[in-house]
């Protein structure tokens, strides 16, 4: 989609008259809006990744109340809980996401995401979680 957009822009620049240029520009804007934010960024945003991979358990609001929780023996963490979330360092949260709950002595129900998310994307998610809890790095950890 990105490629298509760039090609259109080039064509627009070299070939078309002012009026056509404006129309194409408008079309591109509408097109981008439709597929936003995917078409605007080269890779997925932390919000995209949180929506697809985390919301199913941690919920649309990040409060641990996802569609899957009814029969889960361990309930997902409430990511808006500043007290609980500030008790963890960024490095621990990174590890929990990359290697799963077991890696930090928590439940197997928190999955490892190393095979789908790059380290950069996981770092992005750690920052995203900090915006959900409106809290910072656990002191002294």
């Amino acid at each position, binding site marked *: *989609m990105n490629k298509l957009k760039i090609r259109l822009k080039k064509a627009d620049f070299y070939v078309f008259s002012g009026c056509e240029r404006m129309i194409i520009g408008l079309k591109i804007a509408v097109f981008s809006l439709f*597929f936003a*934010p*995917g*078409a605007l*960024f080269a*890779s*997925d945003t932390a919000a*995209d*990744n949180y*929506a*697809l*991979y985390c*919301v*199913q*358990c941690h*919920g*649309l*609001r990040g409060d641990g*109340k*996802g*569609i*899957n*929780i*009814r*029969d*889960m*023996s361990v309930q997902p963490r409430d990511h808006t809980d500043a007290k609980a979330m500030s008790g963890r360092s960024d490095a621990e949260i990174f590890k929990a996401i990359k290697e*799963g709950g077991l890696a930090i002595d928590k*439940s*197997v*129900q*928190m*999955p*490892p*995401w*190393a*095979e*789908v998310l790059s380290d950069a994307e996981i770092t992005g998610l750690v920052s995203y979680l900090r915006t959900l809890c409106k809290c910072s790095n656990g002191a002294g950890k």
Partner: protein
Amino acid sequence: MRLPLWCFLSVFYSVAAHAADGDALLQSECAACHNLTGPAAATVAELRTRKAPDLFYAGNKFRREWLVRWLQQPTRVRPAGFLFLNHIKPGAKSDVVDAASLPTHPALDTARATAAADALMNLRPHDALIAKEKLAAGTLSRAMGEMVFDKFSGCLACHLIEPEYGGVSGPELYSAGTRLQAEYIASIVRTPQAWQPKTWMPDKHISDANIVKIVRYLDTLSKENKHE
């Protein structure tokens, strides 16, 4: 003289045309929603533009008999629809599935379902992944299986093992044994990302021994549950 020849030709023609009919049917009635050619989505953004699960590796995944039956009387495979994100909303105690937003799947008559199933079974770009799975026949009790599936591996969080028990962001698994080829089950549990690089099923590093147990357990489940 002309009549018998005409009959012979039309019978011959309909048999020969069957496979081609199936391909044409897939193109005209299924391709608008299903990806039939690959590749799988490479980003979350791309995946979210998909209207339906990919079918380009259907021949490596499904059991033909299930396809023929299901295409005539489709039932819900994914309790939260595809993609679940398009069908959920916040509820009182937790997010809930917006059942009214779930569409019903188009149904085919027997002849067209058979033609479509045959055409789908020809789509096999992942024979190599399937060939890697060596499964010896065997059984496993429901209790032992559930231990591996839920307690040790945390699979219940996303999958129903009874129509009203389990998680809903993944396909139901109480009829997976009749829907899916055993080798496909083994392969997707081993490396979900080999099939769909951006799928929301995680690779939980399940051991060979537990993969075999899970395959047998799902077989047991589908024989107990007659929800086909």
